[in-house]
């Protein structure tokens, strides 16, 4: 179908929305038949479903199989609003609600849950004819959001890059320009922020850094799999924010993540499992996080997770099925190994970690390699715009997700940006990283026994031990132990930071790496990546998310931490 492409059909002729793929969900067979016929007459591609559960399965099975969903509000197996939320969160598709009940309160509820339209039964065909506008509108907004996010990211990257150079300097260290930029941006945001709440008219909510932080924090607290606009809203405790605001922001967030993921997917597919994938992987990871956010169900998560994990492993991205975890993990493993090994020896190299980040940014000397996610000082310094955020993040480690978040995010945004911009650089970055790793290893003398090839070994000892046998249970504990304070946490990160940014393609990996130094696997709630599944420590490393959340280890968590952080960077507008 014409519409499927990212490029929009410029000519708005009658043929434009032809083939729009519609999924109709209604427990009433009579209506289902009628709607099907009506939609077919509009030249749309129709799929009907009598149960919400079936609809969700269909949607999950074919991720990009549908353009829009039309659903009845009253269904026996699931409330239509719930389905609406799921679809919005997981697939981010426009959803139209239908009902014979046109009461204002119901319609309001529909809108609040994110419905892009609410039709009253009996439905006329002319009403269905125009549903394509919702699909189109969404695509346009997506592009806008991505662009704005990228804008923010690039800004951040600049700042971070500058900061990295200044070892130990916080925002504005040497680079007054970047500091200025930041200030300007912040001021702008603040101004808007001030005006926004006051305006009662529908004014676009400006998602400032601060607001977004709260948002991310709330999401992390809730747990990605359980996240919903209402819960987030309650946790955020922002009086003037509406549920609708949160819902749409959540969608944007996911969208952003999925876009990043897609890009890195593409990259990964080129690059393959090589190290060069790292940079892209990294971005993918970031992006991937978004994706998982969207998808609550496990299988969805798996798909996304694999994607993110894949970042490092390019291959895994394609693994969408639930059963594909293994596939995914295997891929990252190789990557993770590299990362991990680096970490281990690099425990003392906070600086180098910082440097590595620089590398990824394409700036600093290669010797240092991985941006110090973990390093206390470097971490703080390297993320110019992040200093505040970083500290916030650091506190978050108390919650597994947060900790996770903290680490990869800064890099994520940077990396992501980096990746987005220079796909071709992925390879070189990674190679550089590798060389750095080796460099570090030797001088450090930490890894004499850990040649690069033996990364696995190192990882094993480092990664595996803490993780072995723990899986979920210890994860949470570990995290809390590991992150008593942000400084501690940062310190830990530093240790583990040997991995550097490129390595950090797996946000999870990064996490692990950092923790490795401390001997604590980060509990990333990567549920799907069961440690047990992977005997290889690298696997464990890769699934920091796994360790994340005791109750639920989902990809989502993984995404939450790193993705959110990255998103924070990117979604400030």
């Amino acid at each position, binding site marked *: 179908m014409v519409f499927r492409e990212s490029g929009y059909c410029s000519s708005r002729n009658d043929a434009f929305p032809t083939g729009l793929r519609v999924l109709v969900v209604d*427990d*009433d*067979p*009579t*209506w289902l*038949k*009628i709607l099907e*016929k*009506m939609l077919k*007459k509009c030249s749309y591609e129709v799929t009907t479903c009598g149960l919400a559960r079936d609809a969700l399965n269909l949607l999950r099975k074919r991720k990009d199989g549908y353009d829009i969903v039309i659903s*009845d509000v*009253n269904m026996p197996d699931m409330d239509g609003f719930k389905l609406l939320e799921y679809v919005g969160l997981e697939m981010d598709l426009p959803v139209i609600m239908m*009902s*014979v*009940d046109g009461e204002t309160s119901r319609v309001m509820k529909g809108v609040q849950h994110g419905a892009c339209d609410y039709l009253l*039964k*009996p439905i*006329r*065909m002319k009403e269905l004819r125009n549903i394509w506008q919702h699909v189109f509108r969404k695509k346009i907004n997506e592009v806008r959001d991505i662009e704005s996010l990228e804008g923010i990211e690039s800004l951040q990257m600049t700042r971070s890059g500058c900061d990295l150079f200044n070892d130990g300097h916080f925002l504005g260290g040497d680079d007054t320009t970047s500091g200025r930029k930041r200030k300007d941006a912040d001021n702008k945001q603040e101004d808007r922020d001030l005006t926004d709440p006051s305006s009662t008219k529908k004014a676009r909510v400006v998602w400032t850094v601060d607001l977004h932080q709260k948002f991310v924090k709330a999401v992390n607290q809730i747990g990605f799999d359980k996240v919903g606009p209402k819960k987030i809203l309650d946790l955020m405790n922002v009086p003037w924010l509406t549920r609708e605001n949160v819902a749409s922001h959540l969608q944007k967030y996911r969208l952003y993540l999925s876009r990043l993921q897609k890009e890195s997917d593409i990259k990964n597919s080129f690059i393959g499992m090589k190290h060069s994938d790292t940079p892209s992987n990294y971005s993918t990871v970031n992006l991937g996080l978004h994706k998982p956010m969207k998808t609550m169900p496990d299988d969805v998560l798996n798909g996304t997770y694999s994607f993110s994990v894949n970042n490092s492993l390019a291959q895994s991205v394609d693994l969408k099925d639930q059963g594909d975890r293994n596939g995914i993990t295997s891929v990252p493993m190789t990557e993770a190994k590299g990362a991990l090994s680096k970490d281990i020896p690099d425990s003392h190299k906070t600086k180098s970690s910082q440097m590595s980040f620089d590398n990824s940014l394409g700036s600093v000397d290669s010797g240092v390699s991985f941006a110090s996610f973990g390093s206390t000082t470097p971490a703080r310094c390297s993320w110019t715009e992040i200093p505040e955020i970083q500290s916030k993040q650091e506190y978050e480690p108390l919650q597994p997700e947060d900790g996770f978040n903290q680490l990869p995010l800064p890099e994520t945004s940077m990396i992501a940006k980096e990746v987005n911009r220079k796909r071709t650089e992925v390879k070189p970055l990674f190679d550089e990283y590798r060389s750095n790793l080796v460099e570090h290893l030797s001088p450090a003398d930490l890894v004499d026994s850990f040649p690069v090839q033996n990364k696995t070994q190192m990882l094993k000892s480092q990664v595996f031990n803490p993780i072995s046998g723990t899986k979920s249970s210890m994860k949470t504990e570990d995290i809390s132990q590991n992150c008593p304070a942000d400084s501690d946490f940062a310190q830990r990160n530093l240790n583990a930071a040997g991995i550097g940014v490129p390595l950090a393609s797996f946000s999870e990996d990064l996490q692990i790496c950092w923790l490795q130094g401390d001997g604590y696997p980060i509990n990333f709630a990567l549920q799907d990546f069961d440690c047990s599944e992977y005997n290889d420590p690298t696997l464990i490393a890769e699934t920091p998310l796994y360790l994340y959340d005791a109750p639920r280890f989902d990809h989502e968590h993984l995404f939450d931490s790193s993705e959110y952080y990255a998103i924070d960077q990117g979604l400030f507008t």
Partner: protein
Amino acid sequence: MDRNPLRRQLQIMRKSFFDQGYLDEQFVQLEELQDEANPNFVEEVVTLYYRDSARLILSIEQALERKPFDFNKLDAHMHQFKGSSSSIGAKKVKAESTQFREYCKSRNREGCTRCFQQLKKEYATLRKKLEAYFQLARQAGPMETACRPK
């Protein structure tokens, strides 16, 4: 008016449905959906409606026999039934459904029971009329596109 006597009869019958308020605009929508790919679309939909709504009627009947009334459940069933009835444009039936829901909201047992009896009557009447209509339609042969009620 169609020259064919059967078709003319059909048209008169059809018109009466609208004039007497048995059917509304939605029925015309169904007729407009009928085409070569689905030449008996309207009849199929109506048949499907009666088949599916029969179980709803049964559920409501059973619920009305229980004591005390579960008004919420009754309302839910009726909501479903109303939605279904709106699909074929069953105007009178729909009106009774709305009334029934009002009685449910005000917890009026007597009202519910009475209303439901009325609803069943309308439901049955419409069914008979439509059955006769489709039978005649088959006899009259393929029809032109439905004319809008004057």
